[in-house]
């Protein structure tokens, strides 16, 4: 059963400036949603609100499993994750970064080892397993951030500009990771400024225009 997200009439201001006004949408189909919009249009803000990191000033964020509406608590938060544009690297090894989500969930040693090793391979970072994560290149950091989010097997994954300021090779690697996970049925909501990338990845294209979330016809 797919986790589905319905946002209704979301409003959000930062320091008195309205950023989002009356945004409504139902992410119900699974697949990849790509969200575009100019700098400062509120994409990151919307993602943080959807990922339950921030609350809207008004409006409703509702997650559904089948017909059942899930309560906003730690258990719901653990079903979704957001990879921040700056990742937020912990000053420890790549392995410890990627396994973090498993450790906070109290996973056992062998599960941590197995799933983390799987994600290291998936993100092409097996060789970097013991390296101190802050010393990774920016492409590797971004891949590690995605692997760190994926290790907990989220049902919905938010990626905020996963390929901003990243070279072609790493962009391709990251797009491959995204498409591979899409096959496994994870719902993803991704922001980007790269139009060609949006075309390549999107099942559905969305845009923030005049503080509102609008869907762009294919």
């Amino acid at each position, binding site marked *: 059963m797919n986790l589905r997200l319905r946002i209704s009439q979301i409003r959000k201001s930062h320091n008195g400036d309205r950023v989002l006004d009356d945004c409504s949408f139902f992410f119900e189909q699974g697949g990849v949603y790509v969200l575009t919009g100019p700098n400062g249009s509120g994409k990151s803000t919307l993602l943080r609100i959807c*990922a339950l*990191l921030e609350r809207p000033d008004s409006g409703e964020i509702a997650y559904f499993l089948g017909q059942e509406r899930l309560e906003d608590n*730690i258990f719901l*938060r*653990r079903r979704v*994750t*957001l*990879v*921040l544009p*700056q*990742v*937020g*690297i*912990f*000053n*420890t090894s790549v392995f410890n970064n990627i396994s*973090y*989500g498993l450790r*906070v*969930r109290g996973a056992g040693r062998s599960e941590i080892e197995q799933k983390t090793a799987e994600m290291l391979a998936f993100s092409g970072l097996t060789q970097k397993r013991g390296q*101190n994560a*802050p*010393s990774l290149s920016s492409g590797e950091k971004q891949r590690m951030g995605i692997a*760190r*989010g994926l290790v*907990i097997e989220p049902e919905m994954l938010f990626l905020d500009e996963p390929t901003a300021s990243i070279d072609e090779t790493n962009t391709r690697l990251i797009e491959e990771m995204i498409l591979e996970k899409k096959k496994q049925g994870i719902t993803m909501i991704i922001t980007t400024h790269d139009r060609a990338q949006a075309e390549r990845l999107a099942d559905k294209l969305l845009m923030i225009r005049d503080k509102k979330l609008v869907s762009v016809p294919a």
Partner: protein
Amino acid sequence: MNNIAGSLSQAFSLILHLDQELLSIILLSLRVSGSALVVSIAIGLPLAAFMAFGKFPLKGIFVNILNTFMGLPPVVVGLLVYLFLSRSGPFGFLALLYTPSAMIIAQTILALPIVASLTHSAIVSVDPIIRQAAKTLGATPLQISLTVIREARYGIMSGIMAAFGRVMAEVGAILIVGGNIAGYTRVMTTTIALETDKGNFELALALGLILLAISLAINVALNVFRKKGTAEA
């Protein structure tokens, strides 16, 4: 000049022969300052975490008070502890004056604000993105706080080392409350102060050299922690 050279060579010979008196003085120094440090860490870390993560009124003022206490003059601390512990003082019945315990109390009062204040500033200077990343990955509020503290670990270690350096080198407070009793409350700094006065330069110099070596080691550790905390981020 001859005098200095002679004293120096005798000082070295004391060190090389692991003179019993020398050794016991060094060990007491380490025990007193080390105990004060352990107590300061046990109280200072939770206090700093509470000040960093807790929400309570007048927080800024408390942080400022703590920062001010970092620079307490040791002799004043010594005097106050003396007054509290002296026979006629409120804690006179404990009979702690002129014991190593009194010295530990005085040095704890000096070290605690340093540990707490530097730990606090290490915690609050962790990039806020760390907290957000931990939250997105499903950490509970407690786990988020522990993760932030972990990120601050090198800054915290620097704070602990700075406090250790301060109390190891401190003489005013422990001299007043310890009394420099031979074989009982004599530590490196008080011995240096009083033996010099008496003209016993060999022991004073030997202790001085060792104190310098300890300071050097503390500073090397400090620099390592500073580098680890910043360069890699």
